[in-house]
């Protein structure tokens, strides 16, 4: 080391205070491998040191919660003896470096979190944010991320049933790739990661360990991406074939009760897996690094923190190790006993017969420092003055252009590259509101969605946080599901700068308020901070992954108009505004704060209407307002619509204004009274606005006709995204 170089702990991303704290806790200087391990386990990515205190504000409990935050995935009861495990995770920075492999390995990682619970992964969703497609770099990152997600999900046979994509300049330097996975497990087969039983073996299953992503967790995921410096770790190459074998083999072994505990190897590899397993179980673990199968020669510290993918760590009774290895052999998977559970509570590692690590596991896994983020409110934005927004001269043309915008246009280009059917349980495919997936061997189904409201969160983080949760719930309600559990990924810029810390807290509080009103617990999640470059920071982007339940898969409702003559109605009362809307195309103004109880009531009314089979279609009013929702329902059903809307303050605001929480629904003409009574009993506004039928989407706007031919609308909506990618 030359004298010019900063001390090792700083190179590893630890502050001087943290290095001192490690000495103090250990009562000595750490060894080199120990210091490397601390640097990773105490990184933002692994320890949540800047968000941990704020996350406690989320509601996490409920009668159906079998496992809240703190495990590899949250788990809730879904009836009939089944439980569902769910979690969302970001792979933002790796995807910005190498979009195909970064996005693919992101899918791999979240699937292993579900597998670690002993659950069979049955659905994937992806939530994506990129810069505008006018940028060649964003086109590349977007197209390659989609290809990578498809590659992985398709090859492991887990259907990618939903997700979302949005483009905004703010993501030009820091794209977001979040992946969510849901799995199912019988209650009695639920696994956990706490190691137990001193003397039990620790078995490493899956790929050999290479130099992949070494330094990844601390360097790549917790620092701003800086183009000047090349601190790229060795990129992880995805191996979905091995992942599929891991799924098949681990579930087979779990089914036979061969595992005492199971844990995936993610960030910080063997270090985090073993220290967390030990700390959770209040036991120690001894590792023999010479036994770890390697792809290339590695130092002890490298073996301990390598992030090679497609690996799981299992605690197995000594008498069953042979059985585990034999099953893995049959699947052509490596399985190696690499250590054992011990008394005490230390993580100990030997290499070449020498002890190279011997630290209390708890110090690594649980005792990372927690910091408060500065709480500095941003100035309150002023509501938009309508006069400052130029009114479109031709409303029909504005409507058509909006339908073709990548943020609104059909995402078929994306989901056509994903196998969304494998497993033969996909009742509702991507393209509508929530996806609906039948539970194996049951008439029940789960509904799944991911939603964000980043422009709203930028302008008014508390209202925006609530809006994101409510949009997710409404999306589920539109297919007829009752929201049951949430997972969330908090994608934010640097929380130590400006108002970001305050926004983080406000978003969490807004989300929590809405979650409490809906009775939905957060059971898992992930935080991705520092998503900013020298010149650009992302919007505060909480992505809400929500799961709902349907007692009858067959009762689910689609978003397409169904039959000529059906009544078309607008559910929910809200005043549409252009503040922060897609028509405006930027975070400007101040969207109205959502009326949380009213929206919760809307969700309940929609779900009940579906259960009583009163709805022929339902569709959430989101980006692009009621005009876009009407067009989408018409296109999905291949059936036009004629409605009359009051003109309001201005035609473009009435048609394209957003906010508040509304849904366009349709019902049989003779079912209208019943539907009206049902909504009235929930205190939710429901207004007949028109009739399905014809070959146009036509709005009578206080006497002024605005209409698009179905063909014309389809052309704009179906080709918009592909055109933007040309």
């Amino acid at each position, binding site marked *: 080391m030359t004298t010019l170089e900063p001390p090792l702990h700083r190179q590893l991303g630890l502050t001087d205070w943290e290095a001192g704290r490690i000495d103090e806790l250990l009562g000595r200087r750490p060894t080199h491998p120990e210091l490397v391990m601390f640097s990773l386990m105490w990184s933002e990515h692994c320890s949540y040191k800047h968000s941990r205190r704020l996350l406690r504000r989320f509601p996490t409990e409920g009668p159906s919660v079998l496992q809240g935050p703190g495990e590899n995935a949250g788990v809730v009861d879904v009836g009939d003896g089944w439980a569902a495990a769910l979690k969302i995770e970001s792979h933002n920075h790796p995807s910005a470096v190498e979009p195909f492999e970064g996005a693919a390995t992101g899918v791999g990682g979240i699937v292993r979190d579900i597998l670690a619970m002993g659950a069979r992964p049955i659905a994937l969703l992806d939530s994506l944010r990129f810069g505008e497609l006018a940028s060649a770099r964003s086109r590349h990152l977007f197209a390659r991320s989609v290809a990578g997600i498809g590659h992985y999900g398709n090859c492991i046979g887990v259907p990618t049933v939903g997700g979302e994509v949005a483009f905004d300049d703010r993501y030009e330097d820091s794209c977001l790739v979040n992946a969510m996975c849901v799995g199912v497990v019988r209650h009695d087969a639920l696994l956990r990661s706490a190691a137990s039983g001193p003397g039990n073996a620790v078995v490493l299953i899956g790929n050999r360990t290479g130099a992949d992503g070494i330094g990844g967790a601390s360097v790549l995921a917790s620092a701003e991406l800086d183009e000047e410096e090349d601190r790229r770790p060795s990129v992880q190459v995805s191996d979905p*074939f091995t992942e599929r074998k891991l799924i098949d083999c681990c579930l087979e072994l779990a089914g036979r009760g061969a595992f005492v505990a199971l844990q995936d190897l993610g960030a910080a590899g063997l270090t985090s897996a073993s220290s967390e397993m030990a700390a959770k179980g209040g036991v120690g673990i001894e590792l023999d690094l010479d036994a770890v199968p390697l792809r290339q020669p590695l130092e002890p510290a490298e073996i301990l923190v390598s992030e090679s993918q497609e690996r799981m760590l299992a605690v197995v009774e000594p008498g069953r190790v042979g059985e585990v290895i034999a099953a893995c052999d049959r699947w052509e998977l490596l399985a190696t006993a690499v250590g054992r559970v011990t008394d005490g509570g230390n993580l100990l590692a030997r290499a070449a017969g020498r002890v190279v690590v011997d630290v209390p596991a708890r110090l690594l896994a649980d005792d990372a420092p927690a910091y408060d983020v500065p709480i500095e409110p941003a100035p309150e934005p002023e509501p938009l003055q309508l006069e400052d927004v130029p009114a479109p001269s031709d409303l029909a043309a504005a409507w058509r252009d909006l339908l073709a915008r990548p943020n609104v246009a059909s995402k078929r280009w994306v989901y*056509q*590259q994903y196998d969304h*059917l494998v497993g*033969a*349980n996909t*009742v509702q495919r991507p393209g509508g509101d929530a996806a609906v997936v039948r539970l194996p061997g049951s008439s029940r189904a789960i509904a799944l969605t991911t939603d964000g409201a980043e422009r709203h969160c930028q302008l008014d983080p508390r209202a925006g946080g609530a809006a994101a949760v409510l949009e997710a719930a409404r999306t589920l309600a539109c297919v007829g599901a009752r929201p049951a559990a949430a997972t969330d990924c908090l994608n934010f810029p640097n929380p130590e700068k400006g108002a970001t810390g305050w926004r983080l807290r406000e978003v969490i509080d807004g989300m929590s308020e809405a979650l409490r009103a809906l009775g939905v617990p957060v059971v898992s999640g992930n935080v991705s901070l520092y998503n900013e470059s020298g010149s650009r920071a992302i919007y505060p982007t909480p992505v809400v992954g929500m799961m709902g339940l349907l007692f009858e898969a067959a009762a689910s409702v689609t978003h397409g108009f169904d039959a000529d003559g059906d009544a078309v109605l607008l559910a929910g009362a809200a005043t549409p505004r252009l503040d922060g809307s897609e028509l405006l195309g930027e975070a400007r103004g101040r969207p109205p704060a959502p009326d949380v109880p009213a929206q919760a009531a809307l969700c309940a009314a929609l779900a009940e209407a579906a259960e009583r089979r009163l709805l022929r279609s339902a569709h959430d009013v989101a980006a692009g307002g009621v005009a876009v929702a009407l067009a989408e329902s018409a296109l999905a059903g291949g059936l036009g619509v004629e409605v009359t809307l009051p003109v309001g303050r201005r035609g473009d605001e009435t048609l394209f204004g957003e906010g508040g929480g509304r849904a366009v629904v349709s019902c049989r003409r003779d079912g209208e009274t019943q539907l009206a009574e049902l909504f009235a009993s929930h205190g939710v506004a429901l207004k007949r606005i028109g009739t399905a039928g014809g070959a146009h989407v036509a709005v009578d706007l206080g006497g002024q006709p605005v209409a698009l031919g179905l063909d014309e609308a389809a052309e704009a909506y179906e080709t918009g995204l592909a055109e933007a990618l040309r």
Partner: protein
Amino acid sequence: MSVAVLRFPGSLDHESAARAIRTAGGTAAEVWHDESDLPGGTRAVVIPGGFSYGDHLRPGAIASRARVMDDVRRHAERGGMVLGICNGFQVLCEAGLLPGALRPNATLSFVCRQTTLEVTDPDAPWTRALGAGAHLSIPIKNNSGAWFGDPTTARVALRYVGEDALGSVDAAAGVLDDRGTVLGLMPHPEEACDPLLGSADGLALFQAAVAA
């Protein structure tokens, strides 16, 4: 009545195929790739879709050399019925049990969508009950679904209707061997055996297998 469903590392649709066979009134027996023989009493064999061996080298290539394939070959030579779906079709071509090969889609991307098929060869046990010209709504989902072969000598059992066949010669979606007992099909009938999932048109193929 008993239909063998092969399973390789990376098979994905074996359970859906078995479910479809049961829906069609048959019994399904899962057979591991490393077995030397098909179970006694096997009347038909289904090679399900998926990414056997990760699609590495060429889709279906590695699986086509699996031990159990020798007995599948004997079964086919005896005139036994074999259905290869998607990756199973690729396996059958690689094994030489069907003519031609499957190449990457013209889009060079994975494509998952509902397609319409037309029965173009009704003189085989797989298609007889459907009849010439019957239309089926069945999804495709593949990377390498473009059949390459000589349509003047091969029996094309089903063709894609009215849409880009992704580069498949003669718009072939399903190809038979000379006898008509071995069928390779790129679309996934096992995903179309339940109206709740959008179509039950695929069931006819499993009924044919069960009737063998």
